């Protein structure tokens, strides 16, 4: 895959999956992700950034994320596509949160469940002592947004079908509008198309 890293392992639905590239140098990509063009709109090429303060990452950064934050539970890899796309095959370690789940208005109570799942906590007044300590630089400032404290919230990497797919940018915008901090969101713009193009391992999720 990269120099000194022929493969990595991730856990998907309780099974250890080895991610590597297809080793056949004659292998050619076929099917949907080999297509060069789609009708635009809606399948137009998206800009490098999904939102101003959200970092865009590539495959190598995703491998690193998988080996660190995904493994220790401080990060979540989100396949933001609708379930029928997800069921056709996804990146090992990904969980399906369709972008439509993040299209809710910021005041919708369903966000509470989503935020709790991602490790956010209801915000609390830090109190005088904590405020004083923060003022003196002895205590880190809490990452609060509205009613929520995102200090220990998970880093989320979102992806969809690739650079011409709007599903993950849409999900990112929804999360930002609801108050999820931009520095905890990452956009894997290459998505399934680049993942497949590199011949990297995919998994077909177990049907429910």
């Amino acid at each position: 895959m990269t120099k000194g890293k022929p493969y990595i392992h991730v856990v998907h639905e309780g099974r250890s999956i080895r991610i590597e590239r297809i080793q056949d140098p004659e292998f050619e990509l076929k099917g949907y992700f080999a297509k060069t063009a789609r009708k635009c709109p809606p399948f137009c090429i998206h800009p490098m950034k999904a939102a101003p303060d959200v970092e865009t990452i590539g495959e190598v950064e995703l491998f690193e994320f998988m080996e660190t934050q995904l493994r220790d539970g401080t990060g979540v890899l989100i396949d933001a596509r609708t379930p029928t796309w997800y069921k056709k095959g996804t990146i090992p370690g990904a969980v399906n949160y369709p972008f439509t789940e993040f299209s809710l208005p910021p005041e919708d109570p369903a966000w509470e469940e989503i935020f709790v799942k991602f490790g956010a906590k209801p915000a609390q007044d830090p109190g005088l002592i904590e405020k004083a300590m923060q003022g003196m630089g002895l205590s880190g400032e809490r990452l609060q947004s509205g009613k929520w404290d995102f200090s220990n919230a998970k880093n989320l990497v979102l992806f969809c079908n690739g650079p011409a797919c709007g599903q993950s940018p849409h999900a990112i915008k929804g999360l930002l509008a609801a108050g999820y901090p931009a520095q905890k969101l990452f956009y894997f713009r290459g998505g399934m198309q680049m993942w497949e193009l590199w011949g990297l391992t995919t998994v077909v999720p177990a049907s429910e």
Partner: protein
Amino acid sequence: MLRRIFPKKARSRTVGLSFVSLLVPACLLLVSPILHSEDAYLDALRLEEERLNDKESADRDEVKSESVASSDDQRAKFENELEASYRGTFLFYTKLPAKSQEEVFRERQQGASIDEVRKTIMNRYLHSH
């Protein structure tokens, strides 16, 4: 005119109400293109999925017919080789029922030697008469 019809207090309530009644449709007008665009996008995604499913099923059919064709080719090749090298055995083979011929071919495909196949042909022939 308004002052004449409504007393001052009632008029301010009316103004408030009419403001709200204007604000609600305005908000709906603002939100509806967003909802509409998401619906349109979902429809486009669904259409793309359907196209993909049709293509996949067509590809599967193509693969299936290719594998049938390739199996037919192998069968013809086996029969030609048998005829060329063991004409007598081949004559017995041609007299076997189709089901037995298929079994013989499968046995060969599964790795049986030509001597084993010839033995099977003779056994089938002797037991079918």
